[in-house]
């Protein structure tokens, strides 16, 4: 039974990979995913109703290995110390019903249901709404502030979104805590802290309408976790304000239920669900995309789509190429000052083609270097997503376009290209968009070391592998398509 299931996953993955790399693969079916948690080498999330998703690499997800937890709507998770705190909610009927919701918290030492330590503590009710008031206490979102204070946001489309402080030791309400209205008519709110600001994220639009859903994630920001949260046009979220973080992308509708996972400094991911993934029968699926911060506001970034790119160094703007003989092009106007052609009609100058030069390339490994981009065949890299990955992104094979010559890490933390891609770990690359919009390119493995490294510029004209540092321009690359 398990083998059949795994075969099914591979089949599903294969179908998915031919279409896109914008959503998770496997069987990532979920609605209202909790912020992703890592526990003992696996990633976990839960959706409404407590349905689990688990992944060993962060890219291929399924319910296998998870345990349904006894929660109602839209749980959220946060790790505090060595324990996991879950906040979740129950409601009296939602859209057309009553609005007597409750927010509850509970703890667990582990998220692995096979662990002997796996046991949820007794639930604590920390907030509630009456059956008919301007709030519906569901959709909890947790945040730990830099100074160690814990807050939960809650509420939905029916009235106010509220925030109230919790005791990070118990998960209960903080002594004397007061619920504060911070937004109106959102769903799935949560809060994050970034660079001195608290960002309240919520979901606007129509939920639960499949391919017609207009769900979209918006945010406002404040210097205080209790608001006011103001959007990019100066509008308070209590007035309905909110700057778009993500709405819809081709083949995917209805982004909702934001959660953030900080991989490391400079690498942030947002988890959410698509209301409808067109490549998966229009079902609601887990998605993970990079977060890019632009002018102080978060945006959903992009996983690299399969295609041919220039790999441009952020350091100098030069392009990564294989070190092959430079072959001059004929034609053109020499000095090119415009006066040489008289009144002759313009003609198209032919691009250099792979077949024009590949015959003279060495047959074995070829080194790489970094130099002026001239859209020559030795500078064009094809990225092809593979069926395994890291959190939110697949591994890619990176080959010279039109060939199977693959970029590879070598012992000693250097680079080469091998004539044939074999799928070896040193030929697989994770490509993460960074918070500033540039990309980090890391080999899955480097022969002879367990050190985690990434593609770096060394000088303007050479490349190597080295330790990632978001503040080091040498670690960043742009992927250009023309």
């Amino acid at each position, binding site marked *: 039974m398990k083998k059949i299931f795994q075969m099914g996953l591979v089949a599903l993955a294969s179908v998915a990979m031919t279409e896109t790399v914008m959503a998770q693969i496997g069987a990532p079916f979920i*609605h209202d995913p909790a912020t992703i948690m890592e526990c003992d080498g696996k990633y976990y999330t839960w959706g409404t109703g407590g349905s689990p998703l688990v992944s060993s690499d962060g890219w291929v997800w399924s319910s296998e290995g998870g345990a349904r937890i006894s929660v109602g709507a839209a749980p959220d998770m946060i790790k505090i110390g060595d324990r996991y705190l879950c906040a979740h909610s*129950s409601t009296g009927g939602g859209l057309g019903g009553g609005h007597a919701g409750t927010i509850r918290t509970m703890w667990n030492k582990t998220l692995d249901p096979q662990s002997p330590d796996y046991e949820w503590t007794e*639930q604590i009710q920390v907030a509630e709404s009456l059956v008919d008031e*301007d709030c519906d206490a569901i959709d909890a979102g947790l945040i730990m502030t830099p100074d160690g204070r814990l807050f939960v946001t809650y509420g939905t489309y029916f009235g106010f979104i509220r925030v109230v402080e919790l005791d990070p030791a118990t998960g209960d309400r903080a002594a004397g805590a007061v619920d504060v209205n911070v937004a109106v*008519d959102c769903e799935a709110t949560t809060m994050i802290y970034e660079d001195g600001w608290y960002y309240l994220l919520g979901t606007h639009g129509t939920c639960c309408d499949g391919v017609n859903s207009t769900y979209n994630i918006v945010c406002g920001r404040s210097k205080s976790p209790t608001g006011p949260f103001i959007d990019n046009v100066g509008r308070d979220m209590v007035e309905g304000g909110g700057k778009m973080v993500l709405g819809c992308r081709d083949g995917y509708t209805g982004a909702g239920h934001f959660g953030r996972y900080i991989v490391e400094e400079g690498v942030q991911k947002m988890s959410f669900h698509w209301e409808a993934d067109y490549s998966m029968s229009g079902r609601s699926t887990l998605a993970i995309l990079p977060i890019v911060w632009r002018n102080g506001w978060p945006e959903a970034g992009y996983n690299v789509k399969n295609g041919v790119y220039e790999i441009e160094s952020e350091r100098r703007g030069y392009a990564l190429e294989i070190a092959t003989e430079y072959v001059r092009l004929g034609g053109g106007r020499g000095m090119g000052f415009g006066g040489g052609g008289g009144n002759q009609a313009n003609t198209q100058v032919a691009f250099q083609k792979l077949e024009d030069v590949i015959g003279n390339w060495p047959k074995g490994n070829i080194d790489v270097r970094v130099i002026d981009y001239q859209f020559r065949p030795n500078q064009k890299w094809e990225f092809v997503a593979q069926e395994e990955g890291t959190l939110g992104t697949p591994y890619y094979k990176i080959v010279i376009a039109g060939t199977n010559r693959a970029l590879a890490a070598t012992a000693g933390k250097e680079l080469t290209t091998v004539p044939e891609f074999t799928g070896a770990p040193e030929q697989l690359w994770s490509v993460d968009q960074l918070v500033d919009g540039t990309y980090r390119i890391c080999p899955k493995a480097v022969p002879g070391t367990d050190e985690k490294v990434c593609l770096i510029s060394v000088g303007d004209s050479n490349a190597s592998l080295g330790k990632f540092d978001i503040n080091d321009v040498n670690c960043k690359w742009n992927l250009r398509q023309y």
Partner: protein
Amino acid sequence: MNRNFKLILAVGMTAVLVGCGSNGSTIDPQRIANRNVEFDQYFTEIKADAAPAKPDENGFIRRWTIIEPINKPNSGNTVFTDSYIQAELTKEYFKGQFTKDINALPKTGDQVIVESEAPRAGGRGGFGGFGGGAPQGAGAGQARPQGAPGAGAPGAGQARPQGAPQGAPQGQGRPQGAPQGAPQGMGGFGGFGGGMMGGGAPAAAAPSMVKDTLEWHSVDSKLFNIKLIRFAQGTSNGQKRYGLIFNAFTVINVDQDVVVRLAAGSNASSIWWVNGEKVLTLQADRRMVADDGMSKRITLKKGKNLVRAAVINGPGMSDMCARLYNEDGTIFKNYTITNN
């Protein structure tokens, strides 16, 4: 007119306290104090000859004359397409509904008889609740089996009656046959019970009709936005909440011709007119957002100018807000507001 929702509150309070009791804790009454939804929390009724008002400090227009809402039952909000909005919000339910004559405007307390669709029996669905969180007992928010009455407000939260076209079998996500050509397959996410949002298709059978006597009310809102759902409850003894059309007007008095834009937000769809000209439509299922939509340039004439709004919503929150902007993008506040 009884605007007291104590029954609703009592039910809600009981539900919360029962839910709390399930884990042995108690809730400080202060946590849920002052959360009532009585009419007076939202509105002050004013007389026909009340002194002119000003826009609030942020320019929002708080004085409106609103007629008690007209029934227009919809199980969901996905039906609010452009054509539906145009048809339903420009439909004349009573003589003079869309008069452009400021001297013929109704006054607070005036009544009309309106024939409209009868509210559908059994409430408006919901989706059965998310009950997994309550450890035991009949706490607030526990899942209700489909078809069982909820603990909510009268007429709300009950399961859709058998045979109604909008529903979906419990646990099957969005109903098959959803409107607008949803592809075959799963849709939705497979978890919710009673067709939470997808049930937007109008009933195929001819609706039964009822006649209501509806009254106009001039009010000053205590909030920047006009909480129409609370207006509906407060003027119907709590019987009207969802599936309604609201019609409202206000009069803007300026001392010289001025070019402005009308900015508005509404939950859900709305149409806005100035001096009889349709100037703004907010279509589709949407939430109230200040300045969500903004009209083309409008010239307000010296003297009285009539601003009219019509808002429709199915289940969920209903409210609206409006203000005026100068051409240069600043908020225009140099006017007074009256109800005639």
